[in-house]
């Protein structure tokens, strides 16, 4: 009997058997899942719990406070929150559109055959390869009001007679952040689009040319539709990246001046570490997460329909 049971167990865990190969998959991803659970899921649960407590600085292992919705009441009645939502929305739209436009253009360029194509492709990937904080510090100096390169260029090219106060003007600060984010973000779009472009069979273009289609018609009726699956996923990932980006804004403008570049991520940080109000910070974080989830579902949902 014991031998039979043991034999049965050995058969069950015999990973070489086709019917048991799925177990191998679970075993192999288990470490990653556990790590994700520890690093992401558990802190997320803690943050949601914190958002329902009126707490200044929490302490790990400390006593929980009574459940309260006061953080959310404050949030939705706060002018600062709605301003941060508006700034985030503006930045998401501008940076996403800008990154896709520049990324797609450079991908179309790099997809052609010409001398130096490899170097161009390397150049396109370079902004993505530079660590974000290093790139932002460099941009901060280029946008410097007194000694920055961009201000000097603007004077030399005759656009203005004096240095531009990039960080102390609400409009200029927003565009300084947007330009930096587009510079950092477009390579990802470009690489994804390039991969998508290379999967489009050249026969389609040949056939279209024979039928007399113009460059624009080929782009509109062949390239774009076949690139949509890739573009859709890229759009969602870019949008989520802009939503959650913190370091570019923090280093360049700190969310100012006059909160003109204060996004929801900056607001979360300020509430936690500037005002020591972790309960409110958690509430902002949870709302940001919900917005991101809804946006992702909406966009991916539509993408799925268009593909299939």
């Amino acid at each position, binding site marked *: 009997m014991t031998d039979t049971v043991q034999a049965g167990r050995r058969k069950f865990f015999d990973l070489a058997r086709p019917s048991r190969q799925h177990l191998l998959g679970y075993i192999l991803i288990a470490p990653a899942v556990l790590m994700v659970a520890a690093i992401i899921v558990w802190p997320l649960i803690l943050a949601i719990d914190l958002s329902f407590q009126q707490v200044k600085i929490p302490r790990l*292992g400390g006593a929980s406070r009574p459940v309260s919705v006061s953080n959310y009441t404050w949030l939705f009645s706060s002018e600062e929150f709605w301003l941060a939502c508006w700034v985030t929305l503006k930045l998401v739209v501008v940076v996403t559109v800008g990154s896709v436009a520049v990324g797609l253009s450079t991908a179309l360029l790099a997809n052609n055959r010409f001398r130096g194509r490899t170097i161009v492709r390397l150049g396109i990937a370079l902004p993505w390869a530079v660590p974000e904080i290093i790139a932002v510090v460099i941009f901060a100096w280029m946008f410097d009001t007194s000694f920055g390169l961009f201000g000097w260029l603007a004077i030399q090219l005759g656009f203005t007679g004096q240095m531009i106060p990039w960080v102390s003007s609400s409009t200029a600060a927003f565009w300084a952040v947007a330009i930096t984010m587009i510079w950092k973000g477009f390579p990802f779009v470009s690489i994804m689009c390039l991969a998508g472009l290379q999967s489009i069979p050249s026969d389609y273009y040949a056939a279209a040319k024979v039928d007399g289609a113009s460059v624009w018609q080929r782009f509109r009726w062949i390239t774009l539709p076949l690139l949509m699956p890739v573009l859709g996923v890229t759009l969602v990932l870019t949008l989520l990246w802009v939503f959650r980006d913190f370091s570019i804004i923090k280093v360049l403008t700190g969310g100012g001046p006059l909160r003109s570049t204060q996004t929801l991520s900056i607001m979360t940080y300020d509430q*936690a570490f500037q005002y020591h109000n972790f309960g409110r910070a958690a509430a902002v974080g949870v709302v940001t997460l919900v917005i991101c989830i809804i946006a992702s579902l909406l966009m991916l949902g539509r993408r799925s329909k268009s593909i299939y």
Partner: protein
Amino acid sequence: MNNRVKRLALGAAIATVMMMGSFAPAMADTVLKFISWQTDDAGTGDWWRSVIAAFEKQHPGVKIEFTKAERSSYADTMTTLFAANQPPQIVHLASFEFQMFADSGWLEPLDPWLKKDGIDLTGWAGQQKCQWNGETVCIMTNYFGFVMAYNKKILDAAGIAVPKTYDEFLAAAKATTKDLNGDGIIDQFGTGHETKGGPGQYLTEMLNYIIDAKAYWTDKDGNITIDTPEMVEGLTRWKTVMKSGVGPIDMSASDVRKLFADGKMAMRLDGPWLYGTTEKGSAKGDIVYAAPPFTPPLGGSSNVLAMPSDIPDDQKALVWDFIKLTMTPEFQRSYATMGGNTPPSPKADVSGVEKTIPHFPVLIETMKQAAEAGIDRVPTGLELYYNEFSKMVMEETQRMIIQDLDPADVAKTMQAKAESIKG
């Protein structure tokens, strides 16, 4: 095969035990964590290391792990450590940062320790700021007075005398702001202030002009006193300095200091810590320190030492020994001689320091004047809300400058918002 495996396992176990044995003495050492932003500061960092060396000599088997956290992210680091229940044993904080931790009950009351050792802190500069809810929760490490450092070469070239009043200061700043190479870009400034970065430093920079106009954010009882004619004058002066182009815009304090140290700026108002930067600058030979042209000079509490309330008692005793060591006459004197700082102890022997730090008498004088005038960066009554308050002031001031608002209206707005913050 099994015997071979067993022998290998036994050998590995013995090797592990031997290695553990060799680490045993090191593991038996008590390690006290001490985080600070001043580890690399010229002079002050060296002073901390000398205190640590003396402490370790007095306490064999005890090591102090002295690590740096950048000033810009220091509050975040300490907040995270305290929230994670992993605070350093030796707590070093800026004078406007410790209140939140004290209010949460995370700082050890030091009155019993002071009483046990019979230490009298009467006359200890700025020590009253370390009182929280009737208890002493920290020891003031540095109480400073601002100075004005100026580039003699730039002032002499412009034919300008060292300014003694606000009006002379503004005139000197305007006269020395120049485009030296004619490219349309100013490359020599009259003065400079931090206008990019944390609101706390922004507030400190403004305070020079505010207190010279005889204004302040609160009175000694903690009532908000922003909507006053004096404050309107102070805000007007700050707006004038900002809009006159005499200083670089959108620059952090550390970059402004470097600009000054390299001879690109005529005058800089700052605390004693400016000395470390100017000593490394290319214009070191041209820089002279003098009293600021404002009365009273800006001054106040700088940083404090404390200990967490929930570390083991044996560690508390060690941390207290460390704090006591910094307060001894020997180290109070070396705080001046090595770091160029004004020691808070009223009994500190600072004779002869001017031989190594020529402007030291100026530092002592401005510190005394600021202390007598009761000046501090952290307004009474707003200690717990300092970050929120300073951010509000910075935003409203920026709005005043960007949108060219009337300072009188801005003062009213600030008064209302400050009262709302305080609740």
